Protein backbone atom coordinates (compact mmCIF):
# COMPACT_ATOMS: atom_id res chain seq x y z
CA UNK A 1 0.00 0.00 0.00
CA UNK A 2 1.07 3.54 -0.39
CA UNK A 3 -0.26 7.04 -0.20
CA UNK A 4 1.25 10.29 -1.31
CA UNK A 5 2.02 13.14 0.98
CA UNK A 6 3.54 16.46 -0.14
CA UNK A 7 4.40 14.83 -3.48
CA UNK A 8 6.23 12.04 -1.68
CA UNK A 9 5.07 8.46 -1.92
CA UNK A 10 4.77 6.92 1.55
CA UNK A 11 4.79 3.13 1.53
CA UNK A 12 3.27 0.91 4.17
CA UNK A 13 3.09 -2.84 4.43
CA UNK A 14 -0.17 -4.72 4.14
CA UNK A 15 -1.02 -4.11 7.75
CA UNK A 16 -0.39 -0.41 7.60
CA UNK A 17 3.04 -0.20 9.23
CA UNK A 18 5.43 2.27 7.62
CA UNK A 19 7.89 0.50 5.37
CA UNK A 20 10.56 3.15 5.99
CA UNK A 21 10.56 4.40 9.55
CA UNK A 22 12.35 7.61 8.56
CA UNK A 23 9.24 8.65 6.63
CA UNK A 24 7.46 9.32 9.88
CA UNK A 25 6.30 12.82 10.76
CA UNK A 26 3.31 14.10 12.74
CA UNK A 27 1.43 14.65 9.48
CA UNK A 28 2.11 11.08 8.42
CA UNK A 29 0.91 9.95 11.84
CA UNK A 30 -2.40 11.70 11.22
CA UNK A 31 -2.77 9.86 7.95
CA UNK A 32 -1.88 6.51 9.52
CA UNK A 33 -4.37 7.18 12.33
CA UNK A 34 -7.10 8.02 9.86
CA UNK A 35 -6.65 4.61 8.22
CA UNK A 36 -7.22 3.10 11.65
CA UNK A 37 -10.27 5.29 12.31
CA UNK A 38 -8.57 7.12 15.12
CA UNK A 39 -8.77 10.90 15.32
CA UNK A 40 -5.71 12.19 17.10
CA UNK A 41 -6.34 14.47 20.05
CA UNK A 42 -3.82 16.00 22.38
CA UNK A 43 -4.19 12.97 24.64
CA UNK A 44 -3.24 10.71 21.73
CA UNK A 45 -0.22 12.84 20.89
CA UNK A 46 1.01 12.64 24.43
CA UNK A 47 1.10 8.84 24.22
CA UNK A 48 2.63 8.87 20.74
CA UNK A 49 5.45 11.09 21.97
CA UNK A 50 5.88 8.80 24.95
CA UNK A 51 6.19 5.60 22.94
CA UNK A 52 8.64 7.24 20.55
CA UNK A 53 10.69 8.26 23.54
CA UNK A 54 10.57 4.68 24.86
CA UNK A 55 11.78 3.38 21.52
CA UNK A 56 14.57 5.96 21.27
CA UNK A 57 15.75 5.09 24.77
CA UNK A 58 15.43 1.31 24.76
CA UNK A 59 15.35 0.28 21.08
CA UNK A 60 12.30 -1.87 21.80
CA UNK A 61 8.71 -1.56 20.63
CA UNK A 62 7.04 -2.10 23.99
CA UNK A 63 4.37 -4.69 24.58
CA UNK A 64 1.33 -3.65 26.59
CA UNK A 65 2.68 -4.28 30.08
CA UNK A 66 5.91 -2.31 29.77
CA UNK A 67 4.03 0.43 27.92
CA UNK A 68 1.57 0.77 30.79
CA UNK A 69 4.35 0.79 33.34
CA UNK A 70 6.40 3.34 31.42
CA UNK A 71 3.35 5.57 30.98
CA UNK A 72 2.71 5.37 34.71
CA UNK A 73 6.24 6.46 35.57
CA UNK A 74 6.21 9.31 33.06
CA UNK A 75 2.61 10.56 33.23
CA UNK A 76 1.28 9.11 36.45
CA UNK A 77 -1.10 6.28 37.27
CA UNK A 78 -4.17 8.09 35.89
CA UNK A 79 -2.83 7.59 32.40
CA UNK A 80 -0.54 4.67 33.08
CA UNK A 81 -3.22 2.00 32.98
CA UNK A 82 -4.57 -0.22 30.26
CA UNK A 83 -8.11 1.20 30.37
CA UNK A 84 -6.88 4.70 29.56
CA UNK A 85 -4.73 3.44 26.69
CA UNK A 86 -7.55 1.24 25.37
CA UNK A 87 -9.90 4.21 25.28
CA UNK A 88 -7.48 6.16 23.11
CA UNK A 89 -6.26 3.27 21.00
CA UNK A 90 -8.91 0.54 20.95
CA UNK A 91 -8.44 -3.22 20.71
CA UNK A 92 -4.70 -3.69 20.66
CA UNK A 93 -3.18 -0.46 21.97
CA UNK A 94 0.51 -1.44 21.91
CA UNK A 95 0.32 -2.46 18.26
CA UNK A 96 -1.83 0.46 17.21
CA UNK A 97 0.30 3.06 18.94
CA UNK A 98 3.46 1.53 17.46
CA UNK A 99 1.93 1.73 14.02
CA UNK A 100 0.78 5.32 14.28
CA UNK A 101 3.96 6.43 16.04
CA UNK A 102 6.12 4.98 13.28
CA UNK A 103 7.82 2.30 15.35
CA UNK A 104 8.83 -1.05 13.89
CA UNK A 105 6.12 -3.68 13.93
CA UNK A 106 6.35 -5.29 17.38
CA UNK A 107 7.96 -8.70 17.08
CA UNK A 108 5.31 -11.32 16.56
CA UNK A 109 6.78 -13.14 19.50
CA UNK A 110 5.70 -10.51 21.95
Amino acid sequence: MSFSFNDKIIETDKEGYLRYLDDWSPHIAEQLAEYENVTLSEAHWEIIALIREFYATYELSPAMRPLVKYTATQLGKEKGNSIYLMQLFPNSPAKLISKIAGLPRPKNCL
Partner: protein
Amino acid sequence: MSNSLSSNESNTKKSSKKIGIVMRHAPYGNNLAHEALDAALATSIYGQELTLIFMGDGVFQLLHQQESKAIHQKNLEKQLTALEFYDIEKVFACKHSLDERQLKQNNLSINVAAIETEELQQLLHEQDVLLSF
Protein backbone atom coordinates in the same frame (compact mmCIF):
# COMPACT_ATOMS: atom_id res chain seq x y z
CA MET B 1 -0.48 -15.36 16.85
CA SER B 2 -1.76 -18.81 17.46
CA ASN B 3 -0.96 -19.89 20.91
CA SER B 4 -2.48 -21.73 23.76
CA LEU B 5 -1.38 -19.30 26.40
CA SER B 6 -2.79 -15.82 26.66
CA SER B 7 -1.18 -13.49 29.14
CA ASN B 8 -4.34 -13.45 31.23
CA GLU B 9 -4.45 -17.18 31.46
CA SER B 10 -0.88 -17.43 32.64
CA ASN B 11 -1.53 -15.03 35.48
CA THR B 12 -4.22 -17.18 36.95
CA LYS B 13 -2.81 -20.66 36.50
CA LYS B 14 0.56 -22.33 36.18
CA SER B 15 2.19 -19.40 37.87
CA SER B 16 4.19 -21.02 40.58
CA LYS B 17 7.41 -22.03 38.82
CA LYS B 18 10.71 -20.32 39.43
CA ILE B 19 12.30 -19.87 36.04
CA GLY B 20 16.00 -19.07 35.78
CA ILE B 21 17.47 -17.79 32.53
CA VAL B 22 21.22 -18.26 32.32
CA MET B 23 23.07 -15.91 29.98
CA ARG B 24 26.61 -17.10 29.25
CA HIS B 25 27.54 -15.69 25.88
CA ALA B 26 29.07 -12.42 24.77
CA PRO B 27 26.82 -10.14 22.71
CA TYR B 28 27.13 -9.13 19.02
CA GLY B 29 29.28 -12.03 17.72
CA ASN B 30 25.97 -13.75 17.10
CA ASN B 31 22.51 -12.83 18.26
CA LEU B 32 22.13 -15.41 21.01
CA ALA B 33 22.33 -12.71 23.69
CA HIS B 34 19.64 -10.62 21.98
CA GLU B 35 17.39 -13.62 21.50
CA ALA B 36 17.94 -14.73 25.08
CA LEU B 37 16.80 -11.29 26.19
CA ASP B 38 13.69 -11.65 24.02
CA ALA B 39 12.99 -14.94 25.77
CA ALA B 40 13.37 -13.20 29.12
CA LEU B 41 11.02 -10.38 28.15
CA ALA B 42 8.46 -12.90 26.89
CA THR B 43 8.69 -14.92 30.10
CA SER B 44 7.95 -11.80 32.08
CA ILE B 45 5.16 -10.61 29.78
CA TYR B 46 3.45 -13.95 30.28
CA GLY B 47 3.51 -13.36 33.99
CA GLN B 48 6.15 -15.80 35.16
CA GLU B 49 8.52 -15.41 38.06
CA LEU B 50 11.92 -14.90 36.52
CA THR B 51 15.53 -14.68 37.61
CA LEU B 52 18.23 -13.55 35.19
CA ILE B 53 21.73 -14.86 35.78
CA PHE B 54 24.73 -13.53 33.86
CA MET B 55 27.95 -15.51 33.97
CA GLY B 56 31.02 -16.33 31.92
CA ASP B 57 31.25 -14.09 28.86
CA GLY B 58 27.58 -13.30 29.46
CA VAL B 59 28.68 -10.60 31.91
CA PHE B 60 30.02 -8.66 28.91
CA GLN B 61 26.38 -8.06 27.98
CA LEU B 62 26.19 -5.83 31.04
CA LEU B 63 29.01 -3.48 30.05
CA HIS B 64 28.12 0.18 29.70
CA GLN B 65 28.94 2.44 26.78
CA GLN B 66 28.02 -0.07 24.11
CA GLU B 67 27.82 1.71 20.75
CA SER B 68 26.63 -0.86 18.28
CA LYS B 69 25.28 1.48 15.61
CA ALA B 70 28.47 1.31 13.56
CA ILE B 71 28.09 -2.46 13.19
CA HIS B 72 24.38 -2.06 12.47
CA GLN B 73 23.13 -3.99 15.45
CA LYS B 74 20.56 -3.11 18.03
CA ASN B 75 22.05 -1.83 21.25
CA LEU B 76 21.79 -4.56 23.89
CA GLU B 77 22.73 -2.16 26.67
CA LYS B 78 19.74 0.06 25.88
CA GLN B 79 17.45 -2.94 25.78
CA LEU B 80 18.72 -4.22 29.12
CA THR B 81 18.00 -0.89 30.76
CA ALA B 82 14.31 -1.47 29.91
CA LEU B 83 14.15 -4.53 32.19
CA GLU B 84 12.51 -2.54 34.97
CA PHE B 85 9.48 -1.86 32.77
CA TYR B 86 9.14 -5.59 32.19
CA ASP B 87 9.07 -6.21 35.95
CA ILE B 88 12.35 -8.10 35.81
CA GLU B 89 14.01 -7.21 39.07
CA LYS B 90 15.97 -10.31 39.96
CA VAL B 91 19.12 -9.79 37.96
CA PHE B 92 22.38 -11.35 39.10
CA ALA B 93 25.92 -11.52 37.82
CA CYS B 94 28.62 -13.99 38.80
CA LYS B 95 31.24 -12.04 40.71
CA HIS B 96 33.94 -14.52 39.80
CA SER B 97 33.22 -13.93 36.09
CA LEU B 98 33.28 -10.15 36.61
CA ASP B 99 36.57 -10.33 38.53
CA GLU B 100 38.11 -12.62 35.95
CA ARG B 101 37.39 -9.94 33.34
CA GLN B 102 38.33 -7.11 35.69
CA LEU B 103 34.90 -5.56 35.42
CA LYS B 104 33.66 -3.38 38.26
CA GLN B 105 30.10 -2.55 39.23
CA ASN B 106 30.58 0.95 37.86
CA ASN B 107 31.45 -0.50 34.45
CA LEU B 108 27.96 -1.96 34.22
CA SER B 109 24.91 -0.37 32.67
CA ILE B 110 22.28 -1.78 34.98
CA ASN B 111 22.03 -2.41 38.63
CA VAL B 112 22.83 -6.09 39.11
CA ALA B 113 23.66 -7.98 42.23
CA ALA B 114 27.17 -9.39 41.88
CA ILE B 115 27.15 -12.66 43.79
CA GLU B 116 29.90 -14.86 45.15
CA THR B 117 30.22 -18.44 43.96
CA GLU B 118 28.37 -19.88 46.92
CA GLU B 119 25.37 -17.61 46.40
CA LEU B 120 25.43 -18.38 42.71
CA GLN B 121 25.28 -22.09 43.46
CA GLN B 122 22.41 -21.54 45.82
CA LEU B 123 20.53 -19.36 43.34
CA LEU B 124 20.86 -21.88 40.51
CA HIS B 125 19.77 -24.74 42.73
CA GLU B 126 16.67 -22.81 43.84
CA GLN B 127 15.22 -22.61 40.33
CA ASP B 128 12.54 -25.07 39.22
CA VAL B 129 13.69 -24.86 35.63
CA LEU B 130 16.66 -23.36 33.83
CA LEU B 131 16.67 -21.96 30.31
CA SER B 132 20.24 -22.13 29.07
CA PHE B 133 21.57 -19.50 26.68
